[in-house]
């Protein structure tokens, strides 16, 4: 299986503090992966590097069949290549309607001229209606996103990610602040999504990770401490030492 994303030998430091230290990581084209680790292990910085927000000091981030190096590209170029990211806190455009938010995310030409000339086709409208159904916001398409509840915003953001139709999905703590039922729904949605694309989930909640039932990568002090099934990882002495405790 050839990897969709390959991170090799990446290091980055802030003011002398090594946030990521010689990190190597790979994920296949249709794979679900959970990333866990204590605070400060470098989980968010890892995502920042993949999405282009942070430039690594050393190392390569290679993408897709064409083996492009992502470290030289801008955030928007990386996003256009098919990497979507969901932030810890829901970030939607509160001043705009739900439909506008989804329309923004819809996979289309992102150039200014194309956007200026853009008129939504019937198919686009239908796609947005479908997405709204899927995330339970069908009745709220014309409402401003700022009026939605916290949970609804989370869903809207997931809907926007789906509208982007990325090949790799980076999800930061999706279950935070959700009820058990919502967590179950979210887990199902991620598992479903991983059938056709790569999904990386950063999560603290071990129950949620267990529910995903996928390979787990444990980060510690900026590099991979252990990798494998949830059971193997949770029985690893070093993981218990630094993360799980006792």
């Amino acid at each position: 299986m050839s990897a969709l994303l390959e991170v090799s030998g990446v290091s980055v430091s802030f003011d002398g503090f090594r946030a990521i230290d010689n990190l190597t990581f790979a994920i296949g084209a249709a794979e679900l992966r959970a990333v866990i680790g204590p605070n400060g292990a470098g989980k968010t910085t890892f995502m920042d590097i993949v999405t282009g927000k942070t430039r690594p000091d050393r190392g390569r981030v290679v993408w897709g069949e064409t083996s492009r190096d992502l470290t030289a590209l801008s955030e928007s170029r990386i996003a256009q290549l098919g990497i979507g990211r969901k932030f810890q806190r829901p970030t939607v455009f509160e001043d705009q309607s739900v439909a506008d938010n989804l329309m923004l995310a819809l996979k289309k030409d992102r150039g200014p001229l194309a956007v200026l000339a853009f008129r939504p086709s019937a198919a686009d409208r239908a796609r947005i209606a479908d997405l709204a159904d899927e995330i339970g916001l069908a009745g709220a398409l014309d409402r401003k996103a700022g009026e939605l509840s916290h949970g609804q915003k989370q869903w809207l953001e997931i809907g926007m990610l789906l509208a982007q139709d990325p090949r790799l999905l980076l999800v930061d703590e999706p279950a935070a602040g959700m009820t058990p039922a919502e967590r179950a729904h979210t887990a199902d949605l991620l598992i479903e999504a991983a059938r056709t694309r790569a999904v990386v989930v950063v999560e603290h909640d071990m129950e949620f990770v267990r529910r995903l039932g996928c390979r787990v990568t444990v980060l510690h002090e900026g590099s991979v401490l252990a990798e494998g099934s949830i059971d193997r990882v949770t029985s690893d002495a070093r993981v218990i030492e630094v993360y799980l405790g006792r």
Partner: protein
Amino acid sequence: MLRLIGPLCALALALAATVQTAAAQDADAPIQRLLQEHGAAIEKSARRSIGPAIDALAESGLADARAALEAWRSKEMWRAADGGLFVRAEEVDRDTLRLFDLAGGAALGEAPDDGFVQIKPNSGIRGMIAAALVRFQLTDPEAAVRATALDAIERDPEAAHLTALRTALAVESDPALAMRAGRLERLLTVRFAADPAERIAAIEGFAGDLGVDLRAALTPLTATAQEAAAALPAGADVARRLTPGDRDLSAADAYGLLVARGLAPAPVPAEARRTALIDHIADGAVGGVRLAALSDQGARDLAYAALAAEGRVPPAPTEAEIAARLAAHVFWERFTGAPPEVARAALAVLDGIEAKLAVNRAADLALDAVSLASIYFLAAIGLAITFGVMGVINMAHGEFIMMGAYTGFVVQQAVPDYTLSLVLAIPAAFAVTFLAGVALERLVIRWLYRRPLETLLATFGVSIALQQLAKNIFGTQARPLTAPGWLDGALVVNDVVAISYIRIAIFVLAAVFLALFLAVMTRTRLGLEVRAVTQNPRMAASMGIDPDRINMLTFGLGSGIAGIAGVAIGLYAKVTSEMGADYIVQSFMTVVVGGVGSIWGTLLGASLVGGLQKVIEVLNPSNTLAAQTYMILFVILFIQVRPRGLIALKGRAAEA
């Protein structure tokens, strides 16, 4: 009756007096003989012809010469009518003179002035006499007189002074005066000594000296004149070859030189050619060219050439002829100020001095830059604090500077003693602007946190209101803020490097504030809390730090320092309602270049901005406006390299 008697009596008295004087005065005294010899010239007192007379007196070696010269200079020399003897005379009243013998100085009694002619040297001649007197003064027993003589020589040196100076130097007892006289003697040797070798030795002895007097002495020696000839004459002493079109010899000047040397016909100026054409208009044509066609320079040249061919106007050399003539001649410079070998020695020494001057000028520039940087630092530090801690740009910061300066002005109106008023003004300015800052924070900025752009605009509203308010209260004219007397003047290192005490004081003030600020930030609870709020406001709040209080105090502190900066700026610039606006952009630049959230960044930023501005001003000295333009362009480009400034917070703190 009286009208008739008066002149008669006077005549009688005058006759008597003349007889009496002649009897008592020694007509054969050497000084009198000398004066008589030049009598006509002295009496005429024309600047052009008086030189020999003065020289004869000065160089006579007579004991009475000095007294005679001094009497002459102070218009106390009189001559008996019709080419009689010279005497020194004091006016007793309008009509009566008290006479003294010029030889020996013995009193000769009083006489009416009708029989005497006063010798009235004009100021030019008095200057010449004074110069001649210098040699006597140089050996005067009074040190003060000798010093005056040295002053006179420095002001207006002459070849004749050299010998006198050497004589005086041999007997000079005062070490300070001996030093001055020694230097002066060497300078005069450089300029006036007869023997070129001696001059060269003196010139080379001065190598590396930065004195303005030396440069003034050497520069004339290197003077040159431009020469032109068909070929370089054999044995010509060439200071430098010139090519027409060079920076130092334009083509027009080169041709002018040829004309002056009779090597080329004079060009006819365009205006003259045009007039000539107009003068020769006949039947709607000139020189066979129709008038209507003359809207073209080429056609006009043709018409003029036709006229010239007919001999009706002087021929004008064409461009091509001019170029050919220039090419056919050589141009060079020859030394006119001194014999070539002396001039070359002077040039060599001047070159050496120039190199040393450059170093010293750089040092002077650095001092200037440091003082400018201190001002920017003082002006920007408050801005940097409020921006760093609160993310708030205070557009009214410049007006706080202005407020501080006006506070200083008001204090100075109330307390006339400049030193005391300055001592009072600094805390007063701090207090006033601190309160203004706190008021602004409480009333406006507090409600706009998290909306930095709107804060910027709201504080701008405050800024224009304050500026106009100051205009309404203090008027539009500039108000002076006078520095105490002990801040006048400058610390002079040498003739090049000098720095005014006010600038030193501002530098010290900036240093004090840097130290104070660092102490507050690192050693006090307040500083700890401020740093905490800067780095992570939410965390700080959850640790029990009241961010409201910290923000208020920080803002007050930043504004207070702006007030003090205002006093400092007011001391060397005028206080106007617009002075804040003049400094605000530089302050912003300082913060942008330095980076936010670090006092060292502000310091670096101020040094860079101040230094750069000075350097640009030196490169383009005529234009301070251009300096600011280029400085801003630099900052815009600088942002490309370091978007977060010189000292940037990195990592999570910066990402937030």
